[in-house]
């Protein structure tokens, strides 16, 4: 399963769906909203947007890259859009493989590739304004 979702991500269900008798390892990466602080202000939440359907397709492409590089039995990648509150998941990657090495390597690869090629953007909404991560454009005074 690959794609952009608007609702909360059910990571437990994703891991359940990845568990197969031909695999001995499941590695899961979850990215969550971290509350940064600076100068008395703090991040209140993150807000994500995506260019669909290109973003869905790029997530599928990452899955295909993984299958071509490693012996894996299952890959799924889900990225949430909209408001994501502190400690909630914005992205979840689940890889099952017969042995543990490929599961670790492929899930790490997936998050790095997401940050390179998938058209998704986040802004940090602070107590004193927002800023688009990566562009440094926003309403916060630097």
């Amino acid at each position: 399963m690959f794609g952009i979702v608007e609702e909360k991500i059910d990571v437990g269900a994703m891991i359940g769906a990845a568990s197969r008798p031909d695999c001995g390892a499941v590695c899961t990466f979850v990215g969550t909203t971290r509350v940064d602080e600076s100068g008395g202000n703090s991040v209140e939440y993150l807000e994500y947007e995506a260019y669909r359907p290109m973003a869905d397709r790029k997530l599928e492409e990452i899955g295909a890259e993984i299958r071509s590089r490693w012996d894996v039995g299952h890959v799924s990648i889900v990225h949430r859009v909209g408001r994501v509150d502190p400690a909630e998941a914005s992205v979840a990657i689940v890889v099952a493989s017969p042995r543990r090495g490929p599961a670790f390597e492929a899930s790490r690869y997936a998050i790095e590739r997401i940050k390179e090629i998938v058209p998704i953007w986040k802004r940090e909404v602070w107590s004193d304004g927002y800023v688009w991560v990566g562009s440094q454009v926003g309403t916060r005074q630097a």
Partner: protein
Amino acid sequence: MIEVLLFGAAADRAGTRKVRLEVEEDSTLAEIWPLLTDRYPGLCPMRDTLAFAVNGEYARMDGRVGPGDEVAVLPPVSGG
């Protein structure tokens, strides 16, 4: 006519998320960029940070664009 979609910081700077532009058959992204910055000068300083897509796939500045195509203006991605 083409449809230009703007995302993230680019939508912020332009003050819009979608614009329709009249373009010639067989234009290039390089030719379309000045049409956009004429209308939305706030985009201009972002030029070197932007990527572009045509019909949902990354494209270079010499990539062809014609009537009916969808162009996307993509700031540095920041998913995850």
